Structure formats: C-alpha cells, structure tokens
C-alpha cells in the first residue's frame, strides 16, 4: 500500500470511471457521443492543471487553497492586458502567468518566513487574490473572443490543444515526482520534515518550489479557462480549490503529505469532470446534483480505501 502505487490501483480508479460513464450512458440518451467527450475534455484542462499543482503541494505536506483565486488573477490580468491595454496575446499571457507565479511565490514566502501553516496562508490568498482579480478587471467580465483560440484548436481527434497540454503536463509532473531529485525531496519533506532536514534536504527550498509550481499551474488553468469561455471573468474558478482537492484525494493523494500520484490525480479529474457532465446531461436538479457529488466523492475514496485494505490483507496472507 505504501509502495509506489501498483497497477491494481490505477485499474480500480479506471474501473470507477468506466462505471460512471456506463451508468450515465444507460440513464440517458446521447451520453455516449463525441459531443460529450468534447464537453468533458473541455472541462478538464483547468481542473487538471490546478489539481496537478495542488498534488505537488499536498505531497510536500502543504495545501494550497488559493488555486481558484490565483487562476482568476491570471485570467483577469490577461483580460486587462488584452482588452484594456491592447497588448499582444503572447505578452499578455506572459504577464498573466507572471502574476500567478508571484501569487505562488508569495504563498511560499509567507509559509517559509513566518512558519505558518499553509492552510491559513493560502486561505488568506484565497481572499486577497480574488480581491485583486476584481480590482484588475474593475469587477467586469472582459470579452476576449477568439484571442486565445489557439488553446481551443483541436489538432487531433477532437481533442483541444489545452487538453493535450494538460495531458503532457500530467506526464511531465508524474516524471518529476517519481524520477527526479526534486520529486524525491518533495516526498521526503512531506513525509517527515525534520528527518528530511537532518538528511540535508532543505524544506524551505522545497516549499518555495512547490508553491511556485502551484501558482504557475493555477495561472495556466486560468488561461485555459479564459480560452474556453472567450471572456475573462473575475469570478472564475471560485470553488476550484475544492474540486482540485477532491480530484487529488480521489486519486489517492494523502492530505498528510508524502503520498500521491499525478496519474491518479488525473484520473480523479476525469471522474469529477464526467460526473459534472453526466449530471447536467441528465438535467438533474441542483439539490440532487449536490447530493450525488457528495456521495461520489466519499464513495470513490471509500471504495479505494477498502480495496487497498483487502489487497494488503491478501498480500499478508500470501506471505511476503
């Protein structure tokens, strides 16, 4: 259970996903369609990017509640640059990502300098960054049209550039976590900060890096969002942090640090996106949507924890 996650765990998550897809298909017409696939894949990039960043933070033993607000900051800055200042898209995108990175760096710096729990620091930024997004846009939605159409282009099989980007970044993040020095240091700090420090890993540096990454990915999520809606909305991404946490945890990431997988987080994202699309497809009422979402989140994590325990027991009985 504590080894690098086995195939069986991925299979199990994939099975959960398949079950959802199957269920929705049976319950409604037209669910199994290219259109639905596109809807789901369109919804994925921003959630996936935010969830990847959050997984980095979680593995290193922190939490980042500000991802939603930071994604709004990126969108707001982009919208302001393009719509109000008439800057070229590339420059605006750079500025937006820069602003998001700054938010991440602020998170990391506060956590490090004041030795405060990241929960409270990022809760502060959840408020503060949102306020900043309102200030930048003057609380107005900025219409942008096709300005970021590039991200929405569908070069292969109806899959958008944003989606492919999310997939590529998931693979990269997975590689970073499992195969690089940085990744192992993250795990070490998340598992036991004091021990890691004694071994010579700098928790301060690790935290600075993960919050920076999280900010940057949240910014990218914000841009994907802008691209999708063709408008920069300072209210964008509210509640994104909770969905992202849910995705990571459904994927088996521990909220206590030290344990998590990027691939599994991505499957978690797929599950959540499918669930949302499916419930809307069925036209389920708002109250039932909430109830079902709650049940699926708890159910998915519960099922996985039961599976893991059964697997552990079986491994034990079968000897080492």
């Amino acid at each position, binding site marked *: 259970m504590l080894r690098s996650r086995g195939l069986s765990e991925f299979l199990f998550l994939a099975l959960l996903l398949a079950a959802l897809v199957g269920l929705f298909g049976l319950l409604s017409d037209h669910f199994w369609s290219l259109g639905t696939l596109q809807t789901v894949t369109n919804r994925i990039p921003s959630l996936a990017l935010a969830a990847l960043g959050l997984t980095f933070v979680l593995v290193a033993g922190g939490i980042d509640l500000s991802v939603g607000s930071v994604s709004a900051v990126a969108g707001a800055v982009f919208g302001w640059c393009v719509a109000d200042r008439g800057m070229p898209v590339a420059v605006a995108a750079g500025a937006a990502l820069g602003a998001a990175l700054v938010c991440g760096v602020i998170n990391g710096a506060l956590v490090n300098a004041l030795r405060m729990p990241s929960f409270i620091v990022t809760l502060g930024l959840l408020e503060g960054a949102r306020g900043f997004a309102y200030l930048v846009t003057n609380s107005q939605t900025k219409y942008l049209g096709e300005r970021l159409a590039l991200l929405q282009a569908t070069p292969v099989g109806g899959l958008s550039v944003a989606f492919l980007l999310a997939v590529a970044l998931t693979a990269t993040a997975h590689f970073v976590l499992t195969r690089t020095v940085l990744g192992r240091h993250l795990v070490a700090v998340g598992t036991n900060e004091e021990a890691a420090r004694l071994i010579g890993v700098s928790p301060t540096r690790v935290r600075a890096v993960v919050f920076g990454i999280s900010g940057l990915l949240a910014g990218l999520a914000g841009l994907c969002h802008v691209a999708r809606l063709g408008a920069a909305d300072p209210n964008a991404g509210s509640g994104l942090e909770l969905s992202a946490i849910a995705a990571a945890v459904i994927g088996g990431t521990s909220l206590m640090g030290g344990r998590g997988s990027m691939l599994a987080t991505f499957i978690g994202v797929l599950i959540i996106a499918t669930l949302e699309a*499916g419930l809307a497809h069925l036209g389920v009422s708002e109250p039932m949507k909430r109830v079902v979402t709650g049940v699926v989140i708890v159910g998915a994590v519960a099922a996985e924890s039961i599976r893991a325990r059964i697997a552990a027991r079986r491994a034990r009985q079968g000897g080492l």
Partner: protein
Amino acid sequence: AKSDSPSSAAAAPAKPRVALVMKSLANEFFGTMAEGAKKHAAAHAADFDLIVNGIKNETDLAEQVSLVEQMIAMRVQAIVIAPADSKALVPVLKRALTAGIVVVNIDNRLDAAALKEAGIAIPFVGPDNRAGAAAVGRALAKKLQKGDPVAIIEGIPTADNGRQRRLGFEDAIKEAGLNLVTTQSGQWEMEKANGVASSMLNAHPNLKAIFCGNDNMALGAVAAIKAAGREGKVLVAGFDNISAIKPLLASGAVVATADQHADQLAVFGIDAAREMLRTKKTADRATPVDLIGR
C-alpha cells in the same frame, strides 16, 4: 438604538445619509448600479451622503442582514436595498422601519406574503423582470419555428428576480409554442452555465435556443455552443446588457438581452427614498426595461 425617533434622526445632520445595500459588487451588474449611484451622489453632494455596501457572495444572506443592521447602527436616514433573498431580509428591514429609517426595495422584489405577515409595506422601485424576460424571449422566439426544442439556464432558484425571469421566458416560450426540454440553474455564473450548456447541447442534439437568466451565463452558453461547433444553430438570449455582451450582440451570437439601465436603477431608488424622506409617501414604481437586440 430604538431611542432614535424619526424626528431626532431628521434633526441631527442637515444632509440625510442614504445607504445603498447591494448584492455582490463583484458582479458587474451591481457594480454598474453602484457606480451610477455614486455618480449621482457626487452630482448632488450638497443634498445627501451615500454609503454603498455589497456582500461577498450572492447567497450569503447573513452578511447582508449584518449590513442592514450596521446601517441601522449608523443611524442612516434611508436604506435602499437590493435584497439577496426576497424573504430573509424582511425581518431586519422591519427593524429598520421601526428605527424610523426609510426603506426602498430595488432590483429584487421582496416577497409579498412575507411583507404581509410581518405587517409592513416597503415600496418596490425597479424593473418588471418578468415582463422584461418575456420581451427578450419573444425577440428570440421570432427566429424559431413552433415546436423547436429550447432550454432555460436560470439564476439562483431561490432569488425572486431569477424566478421572474424564468417565468418571463416561459411565458414567451408558451406563446410561441416552443418545446421547453430542460431548465437548469447556472447559479448566475459564467463557468457553471458553460458546463450546464455543454451538457444540454449533448443531451439534446436538436436544441435550437438557450434562454439565460443573465448575460454572464449567456457568455458561458455561447462559449459552449462554439465548442460544440454549433454556432448559428443554437441561439442565445441574455439579460442585463453588460459590456462584455456587446460584441456578441453585434456578431449575432446573442440575439437579445434586456437593458434595465443598471446605472440608473439605484438612482431611481435613491431618489424615491429622498422623496419619501420629504413626503412620507409610499408607492411602487416601475423602471424601464429596454429590449436590446436585432
């Protein structure tokens, strides 16, 4: 605080203080409303002071109640309120009235039954959302055939203006003999509406139109239609006439919206309140709603 009688309140400063209590100022519509009110106040700086407040989250009623209490504590002479809920604000507004404060209801109409039960009367100065939505709906329906499948994305179902707009759309849909296949909430938000619209488009491949309770949600719906590659095949209507909707109206992606003269809405309310301070008369007043679109 109850010691404040209307007379002592009126006697204190020469200039009356008017409090404008809004919903989320982070929402462009209410932002515009507040801006208009501030401009108006600046133009009449000699006549009254204006205090503007809004809540963080459209659903956080407690915060709005606190705002009203805070205004009572500040002994303002008049409160102009866009209630976040048509029932939950009634008791606190009753307290305001008891404290001798003039109260005017704008934007979202307070529930008549609740007002009656509380034994108070508060004038409503604002648009007829239902009529406005019906006009928008008719403009869109003109472009459709009888029997065409259509959908509604409504705002927060607990809010009266959301309900009125839905009812207005439904009126128009009924009149034109369209087929309403689904109604879902987009919680007033662009992103939620985008998700809901995408799924509606998949679930109903022949869908011809989506009626949205506000322009933000209309923006989300347009993006969903574009993503599904059904531009021009699915028409959209909105409400509020925010600035970001203009390019879409121009391009025809959005057929119609309604302009409630957001910048004037609060002004109407404030003027009504000032008049009431002078005349002590209470009366509802309808403000204009213009249909925007081709």
